[in-house]
């Protein structure tokens, strides 16, 4: 390939390597791509495909042990191998970046006004006072209400969506030619995700800048980008226009990605199926503040009088945006939190049970968490992790018996039994989630609460985990409570849906009813935002 003269960014044979104690890891293995002025190029791939590292390499933002080789030209100017000083003339002014985590990519010590002014002051050599006019303009542009007041706010005073808007304002401050957006909406709720993408599209029209959108979410790509580059294991698998890729994918990998959308549905259990777990008027309060001698002065009601009734073999999906109290509800139902309400498990009143009284019931009531990286203790082997519950609930088992059970459990979740001598950090996200599921299943529970078990996983892996959960349910007559913000997954998994907002149930009903004919305005917005994109 020869250089494309018109391209804003022209990448040829770019390689990114990391030196690790286990030898070199080639994260990016020589890729070529061009970004044309004013276009939106989506770089798609699963975790570890090197899509982010490509951009980090170009911007000189690699981790300490990273090296970049090859060529990346911004309007004919070579960026690879440039000194930090020379690179800074381009970076932050002509090419800017926004990141995934709006919660952590702003400095909590400075007002947002000051942070937006920073790149202007740095690149244009004006004072902070002079930059203020421009900052107000930018805040208006990205749709922050009352910019005159908000300019003096600190990041913690703003919501996730607003912070992402501030990040965008920072990136736009010097009217860049190229905006690299690294998973800009992944950490946001669906309704806010749609708003941010609309904003980006608006701004692109206005300024005519090119956008490189790094994402794993094909729904976003389809609506937002013009051209797509599909990456896998540091190589470009396929590239082409949106139409080509979505309608006539050439490579198997691309086809697999496109088909990875969760599908299927679940039929409701029989009406006379026994009720396994019931929580009536569940209310959870969190105390805020309070010192050594004073009691808490404010209370925050996270869950407010919610009633849940879970039948055998049923899957109840609980949907809601962050802060709606859905995870808190899950934990309250398992009596892991102090809460008020009436609880029944298999017709036994467990409302007054304390921790010790609950302990024998724990094996029947299990929990699987969202974060497969955080939910496994890094200092135990997989075998130790999954057999830990047996030590508590079946202390009579010998070591060999426990080992047998561990092998069976690992086989059941589709992992190699040899995995039990290894440590969690050696597994990928999807494998770790299988380990977490094995830990719950080894106890042969009756009710499993799944708290966003697929949210941290790639779509294709998500599909496999959903399949696994379905199989296990059919095999062991399990009842699930499936908590997620991802409506597509909820639709595929559950037969009954509860929509929560601010700790209260907004709407509930059979899955089909909720998705086909939502009654409440909030449910409508939620479904609208999610399926508009897809």
């Amino acid at each position: 390939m020869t250089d494309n003269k018109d391209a804003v960014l022209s990448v040829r044979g770019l390689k990114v390597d990391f030196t690790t104690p286990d030898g070199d890891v080639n994260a990016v293995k020589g890729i070529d791509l061009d970004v044309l002025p004013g276009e939106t190029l989506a770089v798609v791939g699963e975790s570890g495909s090197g899509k982010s590292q490509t951009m980090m390499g170009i911007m000189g933002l690699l981790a300490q042990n990273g090296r970049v080789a090859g060529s990346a030209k911004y309007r004919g100017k070579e960026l690879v191998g440039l000194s930090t000083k020379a690179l800074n003339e381009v970076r932050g002014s002509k090419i800017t970046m926004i990141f995934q985590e709006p919660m952590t990519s702003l400095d909590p010590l400075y007002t947002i006004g000051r942070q937006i002014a920073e790149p202007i002051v740095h690149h244009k050599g004006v004072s902070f006072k002079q930059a203020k006019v421009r900052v107000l303009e930018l805040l208006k542009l990205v749709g922050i209400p009352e910019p005159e007041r908000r300019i003096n706010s600190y990041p913690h005073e703003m919501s996730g969506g607003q912070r992402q808007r501030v990040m965008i304002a920072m990136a736009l401050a010097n009217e860049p030619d190229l905006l690299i957006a690294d998973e800009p909406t992944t950490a946001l709720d669906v309704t806010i995700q749609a708003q941010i993408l609309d904003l980006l599209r608006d701004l692109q029209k206005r300024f005519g800048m090119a956008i490189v959108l790094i994402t794993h979410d094909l729904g976003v790509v389809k609506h937002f980008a013009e051209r797509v580059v599909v990456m896998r294991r540091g190589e470009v698998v396929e590239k082409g226009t949106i139409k080509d890729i979505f309608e006539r994918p050439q490579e198997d990998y691309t086809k697999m990605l496109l088909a990875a959308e969760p599908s299927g549905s679940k039929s409701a259990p029989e009406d006379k199926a026994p009720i396994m777990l019931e929580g009536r008027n569940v209310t959870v309060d969190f105390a805020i503040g309070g010192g050594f001698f004073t009691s808490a002065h404010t209370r925050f009601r996270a869950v407010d009088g919610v009633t849940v009734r879970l039948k055998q073999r049923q899957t109840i999906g609980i949907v809601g945006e962050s802060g709606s109290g859905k995870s808190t509800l899950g934990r309250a139902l398992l009596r892991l939190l102090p809460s008020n309400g009436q609880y029944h498990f298999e017709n036994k009143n467990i409302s007054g049970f304390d921790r010790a009284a609950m302990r024998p019931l724990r094996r029947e009531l299990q929990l699987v968490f969202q974060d497969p990286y955080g939910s496994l203790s890094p200092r135990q082997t997989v075998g130790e992790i999954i057999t830990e519950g047996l030590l508590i609930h079946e202390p009579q088992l010998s070591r060999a018996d426990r080992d047998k059970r561990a092998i069976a459990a690992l086989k059941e979740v589709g992992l190699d039994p040899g995995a039990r001598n290894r440590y969690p950090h050696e597994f990928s996200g999807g494998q770790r989630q299988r380990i977490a599921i094995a830990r719950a299943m080894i106890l042969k529970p009756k009710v499993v609460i799944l708290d966003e078990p697929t949210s941290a996983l790639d779509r294709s892996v998500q599909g496999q985990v959903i399949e696994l959960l379905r199989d296990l349910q059919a095999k062991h007559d399990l009842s699930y409570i499936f908590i997620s913000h991802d409506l597509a997954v909820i639709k595929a998994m559950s037969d009954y849906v509860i929509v929560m907002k601010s700790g209260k149930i907004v709407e509930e009903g059979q899955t089909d009813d909720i998705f086909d004919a939502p009654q409440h305005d909030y449910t409508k917005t939620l479904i609208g935002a999610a399926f508009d994109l897809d």
Partner: protein
Amino acid sequence: MTDISTTNIPEKETQGRSLFQLATLRFRRNRAAMAGCVVLFFITLFSFFGPYFLSHTYDQVFPSYVTIPPSLEALPKADTLGDVMAGVASRARVQLKEFAVDGNTFTATIHSDQPIDPRATRYFDRANEFQGTKVAATEDDGKTLKLSGNVNREYFFFGTDANGRDMLARIMLGGQISLAVGFLASLVSLAVGVTYGAISGYIGGRVDNVMMRLIEILYSLPFVFLVVVLVVFFGRSFILIFLVIGAVEWLDMARIVRGQTLALKRREFIGAAQALGLTDWQIIRRHIIPNTIGPVIVFVTVVVPKVILLESFLSFLGLGVQAPLTSWGALISEGANKMQSAPWLLIFPAIFFVVTLFSLNFIGDGLRDALDPKDR
């Protein structure tokens, strides 16, 4: 979904490597830290097994050799021995004709105008330096005797102190005590601090409040005051020293572990353990403590030198180990008093002390790098 760590997972590896094994690998690659380990190992060997290869004990007094500078030659030297022999000969009223020292034996030829009573050899044995003097040959009808016997010659490689005790033996003993106090007191502080901090941090709330205020109260007590009180109550003993030091050092450890625990408590694997029905104590023992081990190990390597210094401070005040026992700290403080007249009393213990502290610091640095979670 940007996650670098998933990219470097070895796909086909049957035997797992724990975080600890990975840390060991990284540690092995750190030359300074490995050198520190080796040096510390040899110093430990020297201190604990050295005395078995030494004929002098740490409390043996050599009145003839007070404040002798270090030397590789055996003492007394040949010319001094000649003088001593001449003195002995004059006391025995004989003439010394010839005198030679060969290693640990001597030969001497004495002559007198009258035949010499062989019992005169007794005079020779009376001197400290000679032993087992025998008549080897008689000439001139007993007027000339050839004597042979053993010489008591001593090596003092590191010299002797003001009481005539061998510094080498004393440094070995000092090493035993300093290292023992350093490691045992650190262990005491480790055990108490980790348990206390983990419990306080994990249970939280009012319990945490009370436990941490107690630590602050203990912090505010002057250290020396505490030591004096304890020594008065329990009497002076070796075990007390590291109990006392450990009892002071655990406060820092408890705070560090509590901070770690607060962060760990919010991790999901703790939640998972609760959902499995583990008791608080099981969670602390199985999940909290193993995960705090990184910062704790690093902190221990800082505590060990600190404790060694504290012990020498106590010995200096007369509250630590008492003569004839000694520690490096005590040796250094004695040596510092005689820096001008007998510098070797300061130099040798100081070298050992400094080298040990350096090794511990290098090991600490190496461990900190090796256990750094950022690499994961």
